[in-house]
């Protein structure tokens, strides 16, 4: 194990997969010599050349659309859309092309691409550069949605995503790029659709992903001082979603708090809550709580942004409402 940043871990995954499979290439705005807006692709141009690390014009549609075409034609593109907020620009290529081709073509076409995008607030990037838009991605059948919270998970999951024959949306959190974590040495992958119990507990289940995992873990430590042992589950992949791990945990604890940074209304937490209510109702000893952002665009001013982002205190408050 070695201490690495989330960004380094992603970079390593890209490098390893590009070495492993020549069909893997990177395409995105400023991913070449610039190393990506967040530096994630630093050094890859030098290692693999301009044929495999392609700077794209500001053309999200063409980036994503050509990646779909190349993927159907047999390559494994890893396009990068700098901010997830820009996905709207190329949404047709994701929603109507990549997601549906395998099905529409009766299973004959494969679209093995991994669309990397950076999301998340907390850096003062305001309304068009800070969103968490996973919910509507999860609403599109045919794509997988991955949201890693740690460096180790980011690396292992990205490698799995690149090897996956389906289009995978890989949502990175921009405020986590500099966060360090233990990353296993050598080759490893983490399967998509497998949640990870990041902390065991018996009194309440907190489901949190991406940046919110870290807030949930911090909240759990505080709660432990008061005798409440929270189990913290990181689904890591939202589609496919590991229901089994969550349900088992709820069977144990009887209580569920879902935490995500995206706005609560229409958020993926609503889907999880509905899922649990439908399939796991009898295990609940309390109503399900969601801790999520208010239904508003993300503000710029630091104090407003801080108020917008769900934090430890809100998680603790939600948990305590059970007791």
């Amino acid at each position, binding site marked *: 194990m070695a201490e690495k940043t989330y960004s380094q871990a992603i970079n390593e995954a890209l490098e390893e997969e590009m070495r492993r499979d020549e069909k893997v290439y990177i395409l995105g705005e400023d991913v070449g010599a610039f190393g990506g807006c967040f530096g994630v692709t630093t050094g890859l141009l030098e290692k693999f050349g301009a044929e495999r690390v392609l700077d794209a014009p500001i053309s999200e549609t063409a980036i994503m659309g050509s990646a779909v075409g190349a993927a159907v034609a047999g390559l494994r593109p890893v396009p990068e859309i700098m901010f997830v907020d820009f996905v709207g620009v190329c949404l047709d290529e994701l929603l109507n092309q990549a997601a549906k081709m395998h099905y529409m073509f009766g299973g004959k076409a494969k679209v093995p691409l991994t669309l990397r995008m950076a999301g998340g607030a907390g850096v003062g990037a305001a309304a068009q550069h800070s969103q968490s838009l996973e919910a509507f991605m999860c609403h599109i059948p045919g794509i997988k949605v991955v949201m890693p919270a740690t460096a180790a998970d980011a690396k292992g999951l990205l490698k799995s995503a690149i090897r996956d024959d389906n289009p995978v949306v890989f949502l990175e959190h921009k405020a986590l790029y500099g966060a360090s974590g233990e990353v296993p040495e050598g080759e490893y992958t983490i399967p998509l659709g497998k949640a990870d119990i990041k902390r065991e507990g018996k009194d309440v289940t907190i489901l949190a992903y991406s940046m919110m995992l870290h807030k949930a873990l911090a909240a759990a430590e505080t709660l432990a001082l008061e005798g409440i042992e929270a189990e913290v589950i990181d689904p890591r992949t939202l589609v496919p979603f590991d229901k089994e791990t969550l349900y088992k945990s709820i069977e144990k604890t009887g209580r569920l708090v879902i935490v995500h940074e995206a706005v609560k209304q229409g958020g993926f937490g609503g889907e999880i809550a509905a899922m649990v209510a439908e399939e796991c109702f009898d*295990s609940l*000893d*309390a109503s399900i709580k969601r801790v999520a952002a208010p239904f508003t665009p993300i503000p710029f001013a630091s104090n407003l942004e801080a108020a917008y982002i769900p934090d430890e205190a809100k998680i603790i408050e939600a948990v305590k*409402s059970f007791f």
Partner: protein
Amino acid sequence: MAQIMLMPKLGLTMKKGKIVSWLKNEGEAVALGEALLEVMTEKVNIKVESPYNGVLYKIIGAPGSNYPISVPLAVLAEEGDGAAALEAALDEAKSVLQAALAGGSDDAEKKKEAKPVKPFGVFAGTGKVSPRAAKLADKEGVALGLINGSGPNGKVVEEDVLNYIAQVKGETTSELRPIDPQSMRGVIADRMIKSRREAAHVTLMKEVDMTSLKDVREQLNALGADKRVKFSFTDFLVKFTGQALAEFPLVNSRSTDKEIELAKSINVGVAVALEEGLVVPNVKNVPILTLEQISAKIKDLAARARNSELDPSEIEQGTFTITNLGAYGVEGFTPIINRPETAILGVGTIRQKPIMVDSRLENRSFMTLSLSLDHRIIDGSLAADFLGRLIEMLENPYPWFQLQPQGNDDLLIKTGGIETPHDLLEAFSGGLAELKEDAPELAIGFESLMAPVFCEGELGIMEKELMAVAVAIYGKCEYCIAAHVYNAMNAGASGDQVMEAAGVAVAFGGGPAMAYTVTKVRECVKAFGG
């Protein structure tokens, strides 16, 4: 909260009921327990009480119609119910009723029966029970209404149900302990059930008069007080049982399925109750032991049994067992034979009872012996004879210890009703004696009056006393009758002479004199004659 009145299940087999009539009108207040409607089941008409306090909001079950059990019949409004909640409840009730009536097949009825409409809380939507708690309560058959919720807003959560169950279990059910077959309890269980299964148990019960033995025991204990010897009834029982067994060898036998062993020695076991069960050490060769030796041996065995210091040989080779539950106030019981023995004697408690002895009411002590026998080996008549012999010895113990009865007068019961001639005599003379202490002049005066009259003169004492008998009868004084009949007969009067004197009194006194003559005079003649 709006409440739904359901067709009640008014009997084990009731599946549906017919509404005879509603006893309240819509809009009318109804109290909990007040008759709300009359329902006819297959068997009987029943007035159904309201399970709620409130107002009969709407009736949806029509008189004259049949409804399956548990279907809604009416909606009751409780205080504070809003119109919307009531209408919602009414809609729900109607739809449940319609659904129940539409699915009129047996299956549908069964389903309804299996899952009756939940009448509480459903319609107002105030989820006061967590689903997890509800599931647990359902599984454990706990009525949620009995549980106080500790969750947010008083919601019943799982923990509340668990606590409730723990509390209820603590009150009503026992702790379960496994029986280790190697433990004493395990061995006892095995032996008891085996004996019960193998031997043909018959139990004879008979009462023993223990008065004499009590006397003997007291005398012996008094004699042995300086030696600190104190005999128990068990000691005597062991002794006499040993003797009886010697006389009835078949009762002193051991048996297997195939053979009967007539034991050479008579080893009488005494059951000793311990905390973890029962042990039966035995006193070997009882007939050759003195009562003192028996007593000492029993005390020693019991003490060592309690300290788990018995030698296996002291438990083995028993030929007969005595088990005494007298200390627990048990009178009679049906003891299980300590196999391979063929009989066991159960000893009950000793109780005092009033009993007529020679026309005297006596306070005597009785005890019931319960003899269980293996009828495969011992016949009832033989067992009865054995028991009879044992009782005979117990009831007449004096010769066995060279003692005489003592303190038998204490047995007399003083009654407040009809007094015997002796009582009368005693009361009178006792009274006079006391009078001498309290008022000597009066006593002396009376005696100085009487003495010159009842002395030998021209008339003999007997004649004078016979005359006194007649006068006493005429004077209706029973004390005088007793005293003068006694004196007359002491002076040589026969019973006939006393009765003739009484005849003189009857001639003058008529009926009352006759009454005294046939009762008191006759009793006194009987009592004092010969």
